[in-house]
């Protein structure tokens, strides 16, 4: 079953920082997808990482100290 709001997006200040964070998630084997920042959030600032909502805390722990980390918000 697909739950509504079953994804979160992780936002960074810049594209380069998002790419760096993606590399970390890949190395840790955390499922993720790089997507454009959703329209309703804002879309002139590029890309973000979509993760499963169940992984939110895990992802936060892994990425919170990465430079440029801003926020994890529901998709």
């Amino acid at each position, binding site marked *: 079953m697909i739950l509504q709001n079953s994804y979160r997006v992780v936002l960074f200040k810049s594209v380069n920082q998002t790419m760096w964070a993606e590399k970390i998630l890949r190395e840790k084997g955390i499922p993720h997808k790089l997507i454009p920042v959703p329209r309703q959030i804002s*879309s002139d600032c*590029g890309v973000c990482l979509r993760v499963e909502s169940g992984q939110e805390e895990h992802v936060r722990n892994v990425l919170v100290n990465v430079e440029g980390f801003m926020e994890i918000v529901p998709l």
Partner: protein
Amino acid sequence: MLDRVDACGLACPQPVINASKALETNDSIIVIVDNQTALENIKRLAKSKERSVSCEMKSDGIYIVLEKKMAIETDLENNHEGIRNHASRDERVLVISQEVMGRGDNALAVILMKSFFHTIAETVPAPDAIILFNSGVKLLVDGSEVLEDIRLLEKRGLRILACGTCLDYFKLKDRLRAGHVSNMYEIKELMLTAS
């Protein structure tokens, strides 16, 4: 008294996130931003949340008032939107994915691009829009040798879309001198409706 969100000095997309949070508990809010990109993003947020927008430039920032809309306003806008989208079909769109034209000899690729833009600027009727992404956005920043041609096209009503992700990647957002900062949604839509 409306709830105020002071988003000056905040990096994109933080102003939108803060405004979005405020809208969860308030029908109407004032958002204060200090740049054009944030203004555009807040306007887009307002649209998705069905709020009307009015803004005022003040010395300490752009004050944007978001207010709950009447149902009839929303209907009218939806109709208008439908007409606009329909009219945008069959546009002639150019896509520029790098700052030079073709691969091979780089010096040659540079002059080819200059020559190309000169020709486009003289083309009648001009295309409707140009999308620039990856290193193509470098053609829109100060120091670009085709800037004059691009500005001329823009003056004639041609839309220039610069990939915002790419400007961010190359750290060129502050140096944009033509076109407007765009995003993957807009680029996709324009490409799909192009003739």
